């Protein structure tokens, strides 16, 4: 379980996240909406442990461990993973090696990198340097492939569908669903209910468009507005509200309703 209590975060001397409370239970996935610059990426980076995001109040707990001030690699080994919006290029490090690293640090040395890569049509990219000259959509697939090898228990996705073409969006959506054990299709020998009970993976997905909702069954939607988590509700309803009235109105109405 992820538990965030009254979290306050500063970046470059400016408070960018205020009084954040968030709870994600095992098996749950939330989506995070919010206008540009509202602090969505900042929240994910803070959970991942980026030191430039300075926690000035509150705490983050994961699997019962207080990780508020833990270094990034400790959080990764504890089972948190992130798919980035704009990851850096690492020259001389092949994508194949990167995927292997992801598996190794989680104690799964015998992973079949080739086979994993084929699942996201990325086998042809394994010999290329990580992110070097990758297109927007290729970066997403590369990030997903790394997460597939890493297989974290809690996954943060920063706009996984932005910049992805219509054909690949299904691939990205279904891959995320598989990672989060959220496939919409019931399997032959298990009922939907049984599958739900066995779910342990947790997710937090930033989305502007909500396309991801077509592929991943999401438990909750959250709206971040000006550094504050202003609403928590059914994701489809939030999306409809935002598209009809805009963020400002949407946030006001739900606050009044609560």
């Amino acid at each position: 379980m992820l538990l965030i209590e009254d979290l306050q975060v500063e970046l470059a001397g400016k408070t960018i996240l205020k009084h954040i409370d968030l709870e994600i239970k095992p098996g749950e996935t939330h989506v995070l909406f919010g206008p540009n610059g509202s602090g969505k990426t900042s929240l994910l980076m803070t959970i991942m442990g980026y030191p430039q995001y300075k926690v000035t109040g509150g705490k983050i707990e994961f699997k019962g461990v207080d990780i508020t001030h833990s270094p990034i690699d400790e959080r990764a080994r504890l089972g948190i993973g992130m798919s980035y919006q704009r990851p850096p290029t690492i020259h001389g490090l092949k994508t194949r090696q990167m995927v292997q690293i992801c598996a190794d640090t989680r104690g799964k040395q015998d992973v079949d990198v080739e086979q994993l890569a084929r699942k996201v049509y990325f086998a042809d990219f394994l010999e290329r340097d990580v992110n070097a000259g990758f297109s927007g959509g290729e970066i997403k697939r590369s990030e997903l492939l790394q997460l597939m090898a890493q297989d974290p228990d809690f996954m943060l996705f920063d706009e996984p569908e932005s910049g992805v073409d219509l054909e690949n969006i299904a691939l990205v959506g279904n891959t995320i669903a598989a990672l989060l054990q959220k496939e919409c299709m019931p399997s032959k020998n298990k009922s939907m209910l049984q599958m739900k009970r066995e779910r342990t993976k947790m997710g937090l997905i930033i989305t502007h468009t909500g396309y991801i909702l077509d592929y991943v069954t999401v438990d909750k939607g959250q709206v971040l507005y000006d550094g504050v988590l202003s609403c928590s509700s059914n994701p489809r309803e939030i999306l409809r509200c935002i598209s009809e009235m805009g963020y400002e109105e949407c946030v006001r109405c739900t606050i009044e309703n609560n």
Partner: protein
Amino acid sequence: MYDREQLREQAKKALGKAAAIGPDVNLDEFEKAPVDHKYLDDNELRSLPEDEQKRLIMAGLDLTEKERGGTYFQKDTAVIHCKSKQAGVEVIPIKKALQELDWIRDYYWKLVSVDTDKYTAAAELDLHDGYVIRSLPGAKTVYPIQACLYLDKEGLQQNVHNIIIAEEDSELHIITGCSTSPHLKKAAHVGISEFYVKKNAKLSFTMIHNWAEDMQVRPRSVAQVEEGGLFLNNYICMKPVKSLQMYPTTHLIGNDAVARFYSIIVGSPGSEYDVGGRIFLKKPGNRAEIVARTISNGGKIIARGDLIGEVAEIKAHLECKGLILNGGVIHAIPELRGYVDGVEMSHEAAVGKIAQEEITYLMSRGLTEDEATSTIVRGFLSVDIPGLPAQLKSEIDRAVAASDETVM
């Protein structure tokens, strides 16, 4: 008749001549007298003391010779092993060649001038030995030939002269390691190398330096590449040295001749490296590339590169990237000289540090900060070298992987 006497006279006049660049070495501090070492047969070669073997392996030497086409092994001043296992390739000690082979006179001191500086002069006046490696016309070698110049005697100045010839249409790969015995502290190495790549021949030369902290090293090498020929020159130096200065030069003298230089240097504290490459493009269709990756770990590195385009329809590129990790200095000096319309020449140079963003990215995949740093460093040092046989590629990879010890 080539005249050793005349060469000696010329050399004597240059004995006091300092090199054009680099710190001046006082050669009087070193001994030049020959040191006796017994010739080793195959079995003795394989049963060298373990710590010595380790040093040799680090320098790319394969004592089992399984994936090698031949071996030249010189310890101090003496040749202790020399053979070719492949038809079409000759490996001969240069002193023997000078006595027995007439044709060597067409190559000896023909590219490097004996009076270049006091180091070339010393190599003529007190020549210890060196190798002649020649691939015969049309011979395509499968396995690389290995050469090792080893220093064991404290205070010695080792003077070596090498001649490498790839005859027309032949293919020749050489890996040469220079190393010192584990106990050696102070010594000097002077190495003259002359490379002849003939019409449509391909020569790759991979040099791994593994010196000691108080070593003075002054290689002097010049290559000449004829029509359609390819010269691939790789240089790796990851270990400390007192001072190393070299500026290998290549002349592309035939149409479509190509030269590529790749160097990887890690500069340790107290070490000074002045290393570069110079390529003259003299004929249409010539191509040249110089790629350097340097890391300063507290040492001083001057990375030079000089491309000279003398005719139209040539293409040349120079890439010099440096990382300063734990202090030290990297001084990149890239030069391009175009003498006519229609040359295409470019360079990129950068000196910097590891981006924090890359470290944190890898940490979020579970690597510790140190593991992330060394992963990035290894990536930085790994350059793709097209046309290099797999055995040599793995030697380079191994040297780069071992850089962790020096860098971290």
